[in-house]
């Protein structure tokens, strides 16, 4: 149980919990303030979800429409069944273009396919350029939040890291730290032959991809190198250009509490004339990697509506305590707990759907109203069903619940059983449930007895 172990480690880390509390609370407040200004917020959520639902129900045709239009505008589209194929495609493009240095803007999909390691294995250096991702890469760590990857690190730790890796004079001044990263990364941008970005939305009717960001590194990544590779999950497509409006209202407000992030790049194919600015080649890599499987049921399908805002992480009482690393997956928090097992298969991360108290805070803040608790329960049921065929524990559990159901369905039997339990003063052991919780002893008289006695007295007086 690595989640169990890692969660304990995180809980014992006071510095980490302090940083998490600060960050998630601040993001929560900013989000609330940002959506207070939007009178039709609920309506926008419903519209966005309806658009996603419509798209997913016809994903095959929207994808084909997107591809036809993107290719018509000069992009080259590649299809990847899984992570390995996506890495091969991107490494192949880099090799064909003679690229030794690749600059990357933040892309969760590229983390998902472990692109950096795949490129490194082929002798190609991939440099993360988002400040948070850059810090995490320099430290040899993994991102711990979808929106702010280095949320777990203090400026003191970052100062020490930059002193060691960039040779800068140690400084706790955040502005100077950012300036040092800017300078180091400018050199990388100057020499980069290829830029890899993610995609936030892909418009079927125009073949446009849209990338949101705040720093400008995605703009540099997609406009300076000769070649731009955009990696996107197949669920990123939306039908119409005008649909962008509702998603642009929802995503920044939910993610960082901004009305709009500093930059949106809307890219449609390649430059039209040699004199135009921008890359000569645009390659769009469409990644399945388990997504098409999720279409099979309406419960799992809604996972694909996610726009990666990170609001559910900030709202989750579990994430707020343990942070992203304990989840042991690229996608942490509530959305990670439902996405990861579905992408990787239940065998890999069967414990993640249990990393939740099912309180529903994630569902309440989700801008596209994904019922994450319902998906968690669905996945838990699958885990149980898988286990049901094996092991004595599963058999005992099934027997116990059958007995429980039988007793609960029969009032007489229920009273008799409870009477026995009361007489011998025992509470049955409930496994993990009672390991960390005290079950209160049974009251000497049951509520039913009290009720009957009370009624009697009232009637008698």
């Amino acid at each position, binding site marked *: 149980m690595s989640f169990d172990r890692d969660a304990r480690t995180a809980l014992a880390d006071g510095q980490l919990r302090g940083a998490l509390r600060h960050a998630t609370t601040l993001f929560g407040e900013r989000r609330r303030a940002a959506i207070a200004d939007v009178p039709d917020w609920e309506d926008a959520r419903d519209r966005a979800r309806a658009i996603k639902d419509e798209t997913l129900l016809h994903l095959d045709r929207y994808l084909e*429409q997107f591809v036809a239009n993107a290719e018509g*505008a000069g992009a080259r589209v590649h299809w990847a069944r899984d992570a390995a194929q996506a890495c091969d495609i991107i490494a192949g493009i880099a090799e064909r273009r003679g690229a030794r240095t690749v600059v990357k803007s933040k892309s969760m999909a590229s983390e998902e396919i472990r692109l950096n390691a795949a490129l490194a294995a082929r002798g190609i250096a991939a440099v993360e350029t988002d400040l948070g991702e850059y810090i995490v890469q320099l430290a040899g760590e993994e991102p711990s939040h979808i929106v702010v990857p280095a949320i777990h690190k203090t400026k003191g730790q970052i100062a020490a890291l930059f002193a060691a890796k960039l040779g800068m004079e140690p400084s706790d001044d955040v502005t100077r730290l*950012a300036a040092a990263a800017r300078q180091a990364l400018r050199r990388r941008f100057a020499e980069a032959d290829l830029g890899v970005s993610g995609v936030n939305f892909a418009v079927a009717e125009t073949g446009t991809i849209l990338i949101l960001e705040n720093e400008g590194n995605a703009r540099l990544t997609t406009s300076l190198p000769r070649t731009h590779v955009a990696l996107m999950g197949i669920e990123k497509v939306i039908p119409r250009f005008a649909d962008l409006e509702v998603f642009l209202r929802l995503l920044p407000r939910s993610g960082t509490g901004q009305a*709009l992030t500093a*930059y949106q790049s809307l890219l449609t194919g390649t430059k039209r004339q040699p004199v135009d600015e921008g890359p000569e080649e645009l390659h769009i890599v469409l990644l399945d990697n388990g997504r098409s499987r999720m279409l099979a049921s309406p419960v799992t399908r809604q996972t694909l509506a996610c726009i990666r805002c990170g609001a559910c992480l900030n709202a989750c009482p579990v994430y707020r305590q343990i942070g992203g690393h304990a989840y042991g997956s690229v996608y942490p928090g509530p959305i990670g707990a439902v996405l990861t097992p579905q992408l990787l298969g239940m065998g890999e991360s069967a414990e993640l759907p249990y990393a939740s108290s099912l309180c529903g805070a994630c569902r309440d803040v989700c801008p596209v109203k994904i019922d994450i608790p319902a998906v968690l329960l669905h996945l838990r049921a699958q885990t149980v069903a898988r286990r049901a065929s094996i092991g004595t524990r599963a058999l005992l559990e099934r027997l116990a619940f059958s007995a429980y159901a039988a007793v609960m369905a029969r009032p007489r039997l229920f009273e008799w059983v409870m009477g026995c339990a009361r007489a011998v003063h025992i509470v049955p052991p409930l496994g993990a449930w009672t390991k960390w919780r005290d079950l209160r002893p049974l009251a000497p008289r049951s509520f039913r007895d009290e009720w009957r006695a009370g009624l009697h007295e009232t009637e008698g007086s």
Partner: protein
Amino acid sequence: MTDSDAARRDILRAIRENLKPRGIAPRSAEPVQSTADPGPAARGSPPGLRPGSVGPVERASPDAVTRFKAQLAAVGAQCTLACGEPDAARALARILTDAGARRVVGSDAPLVQRLLSTLGHDFVRESLDRLSRDDLFACEAGVTTAQWGIAETGTLVLESARERSRLLSLVPPIHVAVLSTRCICESLGDALDRVRQAASHAITFITGPSRTSDIELTLVVGVHGPQTVHVLLLEDV
């Protein structure tokens, strides 16, 4: 058949298999155009994007201009109002001087070229056409126009079909954008409607300076893009 073609076939088949109704609700009516006709895509021009530009907003309400200026301030952008080109040229020189920018590069927009031509000898004017990547990195200010402003959010909209402004608005630490008050739209939706009609391969929405909160959620401006965004609002005389 290439790997990618095989993957395309497999993925589309997997999508269709998984979407097959399982005796429950049927799939809803078909809202998508038939893909048998790929439409304008096959005819070479970017579909959905009609070439040609659209005219400015008939007359931006004074209210929109006020809201735009308030939103610019809220997102940390500067704003200077100028009446007519001579006034704008003087304002531009003042903005650049105050910011301490000497090496300046302007876009190919005729208005920008006219404004820059009035700058005195205190400035080094780089030419966009002969600019190497290193030269560009050494510039202290980039001057462009913006095709649209969005009052709701204080956003500038730049279209590649209208001007070569993609790098100048991004790489130098100071970005000065000249915007006509007649091109201020009310909302994000209005702006999306307008850019959709111009055949730009790159449309950039800019809201304030480049920013990050990646270290302890402390705001730092100018991390990769400009530290200063100065909007020179041009009122026609």
